[in-house]
């Protein structure tokens, strides 16, 4: 791999007896979008905080831009943009002032700052709201402003912790579009998510995490090919079919649905057509990989 931006070796983080990050290894290539996919409590946010030097590691090695993170945290953060899970815009300021004040924390030169703020507000479609106070913005606008704020220092790497959680589909699509543009411009993106669609659309590479460990790593297509059969038939409600083995199906039950994973769904579909069972036939996706690897029980 050429010139990785962040490299972790056997990285771990413990709180008392709890191992929140449990000896993970990863190497994040420059200019790509790298995802951390996992259920709540998998250790994704802690991994990001470790990368930013915002929490001490308990073991292993972690480098960003070739520098050990915890000795050079301040230096590293100068080159990184951060979009936190919950917006923490400064409520005492307007939209444009939020960017200007944030720029002062990076000690950015004032020459060209106005132009940069204008360009960023244009980029996130907030130019018209530049004098609005942040609490008057919708959730989607606040998120976009947070993204603009993360870009104020022209970062080489942008770290996003669940960038679209809690947003409506329109707002989510706008943000995906902006992130795709950033990546196309050569910025490295690291994001955590539990939205499969987001991971499939944005991530070149991703790891699936649970209980502090990395369960699998690869591109979305690689992960699907590696872990699940290519086709799924999802049967809703009760079904009279009992001989899945003969049809070469691997079955899993979740809620009131039965998932049948197979390399060839034709025989099963033929049987289903003769009954009046409700079903959906679709290609396997990341969600199937995710549920297979992390299990189906409820997480809180």
């Amino acid at each position, binding site marked *: 791999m050429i010139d990785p931006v962040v490299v972790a070796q056997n990285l771990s983080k413990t709180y008392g007896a709890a191992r929140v990050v449990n000896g993970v290894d990863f190497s994040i290539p420059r200019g790509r979008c790298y995802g951390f996919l996992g259920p709540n409590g998998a250790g994704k946010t802690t991994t990001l905080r470790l990368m930013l030097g*915002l929490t001490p590691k308990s073991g292993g090695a972690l480098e960003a831009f070739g520098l050990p993170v915890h000795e050079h945290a301040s230096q590293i953060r100068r080159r990184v943009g951060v979009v936190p899970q919950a917006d923490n815009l400064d409520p005492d300021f307007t939209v444009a002032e939020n960017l200007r004040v944030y720029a*002062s924390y990076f000690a950015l030169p004032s020459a060209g700052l106005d132009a940069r703020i204008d360009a960023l507000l244009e980029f996130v479609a907030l130019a018209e709201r530049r004098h609005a106070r942040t609490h008057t913005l919708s959730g989607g606008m606040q998120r976009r402003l947070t993204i603009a704020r993360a870009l104020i220092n022209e970062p080489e790497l942008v770290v996003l912790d669940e960038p679209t959680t809690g947003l409506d589909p329109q707002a989510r699509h706008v943000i995906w579009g902006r992130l795709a543009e950033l990546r196309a411009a050569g910025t490295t993106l690291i994001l955590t998510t539990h939205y499969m669609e987001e991971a499939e659309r944005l991530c070149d590479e991703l790891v699936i995490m649970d209980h502090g460990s990395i369960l699998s790593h690869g591109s979305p297509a690689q992960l699907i090919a590696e872990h699940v059969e290519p086709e799924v038939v999802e049967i809703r409600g009760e079904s009279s079919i009992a001989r899945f083995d003969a049809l070469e199906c691997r079955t899993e039950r979740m809620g009131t649905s039965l998932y049948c994973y197979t390399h060839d769904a034709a025989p099963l579909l033929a049987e289903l057509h003769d009954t009046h069972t409700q079903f959906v036939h679709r290609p396997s996706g990341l969600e199937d990989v995710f549920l297979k690897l992390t299990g189906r029980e409820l997480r809180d």
Partner: protein
Amino acid sequence: MANEAGTVAMGWDPWRIPRLRRGAFAVWRRNVLVWRRLVIPSLLLNFGEPTLYLLGLGFGLGHFIGEMGGMPYITFLASGMIASSAMTTASYEAMYSVYTRMVPQKTYEAILATPLEIEDILAGELLWCATKSLLSGCAILAVAALLGVVQGWQALFVLPVVLLIGLCFAAPALLMTAASPGYEFFNYYFVLIITPMFIMCGVFYPVSTLPAVVQEFVHVLPLTHAVALTRPIVSGQPLTQPLLHTLVLLLYMTVFYYAAVVVIRKRLLN
């Protein structure tokens, strides 16, 4: 291996000595920008309170008291209140406002994603709290001058002292904030620390009138040293042991600022 037990935090030491870096001034400047927005109500508080105290107590009580400590009572009161007001202003700011920025508003979380560190944030806050003390000191001095109780231009030398008093009292208040689970916690500090100093440290009457045992205790408290500096400067009397008083204030500032940095590092970077 110590790491395996998770007890050793590698490459990270909460006890590291804080440095003063440029970032502190960015945090200070942020607060100035917010203050600019609320300048009218802030100034109303800065001018209104001392005016009421000086008119009400200074003239009212002063009528019966006449002179105290070799000066008119209103001068005695004004020269003490310049110190006590610096104390309360810095304490309020370092507790209620700093806590608001740290916890509900998550301003520090946002700042910590930039090159700034906890020590920069707290140094900026400390400086800002002292700046607010300075504003309140200027207001009292202006009111006192208008009432004709300031003895001359030498009184202006009290302003750098007020800044130092603000720094001295902001630091322990920051430590309270660092350890605080919520706003209610600050009531303890005001009732047990700030109000007793306000009453006992020579703002309203000379410390020498207190029982000997109490005096010894009061001489350890920073407000006593603050008043010992502001009173002679404002009233035009000679200073006694200015170096000692200054050092005591600096010591309080240094020790408590360092403690606040350590506690907040442990709280936010856990």
